[in-house]
């Protein structure tokens, strides 16, 4: 296996130079996106550099407690992102969604690292942190879509929910069609994506691993496992988020409370 060619600063600058062309196109068509794009790339650069430094440090220390703390910090950030993007109230939704994400990520981490890869130290930074990051990044997208669909449908089809309830359904039964819609809207695109992997798209992790010097067969095996874990943790976290949030969003007569942000 040969090591990867490191990028020196001149190479990095050369890399940035290519941006002139897309920025020029955005500017020429007066899209108003140049400033946003510029800020986005600066942010991306700073965030990744900081994470790079931080990960170097955390990898070197490799303390289980520090690694777990970092996982919790990532989960808190993920929870905030989900709640903000779903326009829900932080106060009511933080705990249920946080618990849902923590549980699903920890279960999948433990299964993947402990049973599949059989690591001696489950909290090894080199595995725990990037894999948790991948699980969280993918779960966030699906939870946001699922929660948005779920509450939007519950408001839009309120009469259908009431029709079930008032004709003898338990709350769980009356919610089944809404959970079904939420799962469908969140996981249809994910399943489509799983089905085309390798044909049209090469996943980032696998590409990174190959560039990092791994043999393609090893990279592929990791990628397969990772896609299964990402899919499972996303479904768990969607299911648990809705399950825990349900305990907060209905009144004692099973009516949906006002849940959006008051603006």
């Amino acid at each position, binding site marked *: 296996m040969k090591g990867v060619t490191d990028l020196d600063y001149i190479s990095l600058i050369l890399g940035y130079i290519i941006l002139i062309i897309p920025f020029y196109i955005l500017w020429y068509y007066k899209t108003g996106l140049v400033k946003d794009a510029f800020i986005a790339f600066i942010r991306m650069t700073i965030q990744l550099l900081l994470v790079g430094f931080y990960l170097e440090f955390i990898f070197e220390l490799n303390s289980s407690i520090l690694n777990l703390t970092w996982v919790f910090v990532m989960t808190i950030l993920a929870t905030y992102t989900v709640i903000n993007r779903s326009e829900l109230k932080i106060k009511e939704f933080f705990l249920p969604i946080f618990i849902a994400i923590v549980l699903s990520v920890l279960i999948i981490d433990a299964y993947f690292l402990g049973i599949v890869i059989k690591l001696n130290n489950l909290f090894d930074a080199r595995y725990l942190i990037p894999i948790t990051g991948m699980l969280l990044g993918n779960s966030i997208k699906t939870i946001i879509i699922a929660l948005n669909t779920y509450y939007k449908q519950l408001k839009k*089809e309120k*009469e*259908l929910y*009431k*029709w*079930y*309830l*008032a*004709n*003898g*359904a*338990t709350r769980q*039964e009356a919610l089944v069609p809404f959970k079904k819609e939420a799962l469908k809207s969140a996981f249809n695109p994910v399943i489509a994506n799983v089905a085309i992997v390798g044909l049209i798209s090469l996943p980032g992790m696998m590409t990174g691993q190959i560039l990092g010097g791994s043999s393609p067969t090893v990279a592929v095996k990791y990628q397969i496992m990772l896609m299964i874990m990402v899919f499972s943790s996303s479904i768990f976290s969607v299911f648990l988020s809705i399950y825990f949030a349900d305990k907060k969003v209905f009144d*004692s*007569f*099973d*009516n949906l409370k006002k849940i959006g942000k008051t603006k």
Partner: protein
Amino acid sequence: MVTPLISVNNISISYDKNEVVKNLSFQLSKGDKAVITGESGKGKSSILNALAGFVPISNGNIFFSNIELLPKYIGEIRSNIAWLPQETALHFDSVKEIIYSLFSLHKNKPDTPSKAEIHQLLNQLNISPVLLDKEIDEISGGQKQRILLAGALLLKKEVLIIDEPTSDLDEKNKKLITDFILTQKELTVIAVSHDAYWIENSSKNIAL
């Protein structure tokens, strides 16, 4: 004195400090056919919603027989009523779903009607059972209304709470459906209606 089947005592309903129903009381006995009448915005639908626990009452109380409408009894109360909002408010994928989703519920499962029973009732409501195999957008609003009604009646509950039951029907079907429902001896009906024939044939008018 016999306990009334439904007893509404001095209830008020408000939305954001705007009181739409004030100190309303009425009693219904088994078999009564009540209709709530009044102009738009007078809170007619709100009363139906309050009866099923979907809208909070700000004072007074509601009893079904001797069970008070409280959170701990709401499941029991809801399993003794059949509820039908205006047809346009409900969306389904298929026609069959309207009937069968009601009987997929745990509480209603033991009462699942036979195919023959369903077909017989549909025929009585002037609906061809063939329609059950159609997609929802292949039937008219009036047909959907009667199929929803068939579902509600097949549940064989004591009380039918129904909003504008004949709004989408032509004159002939309006008369047929009104006569059919209002002559079900055992059934207690509480409806909101603007229809003169329905109002005329109801046994009790709660005018707001």
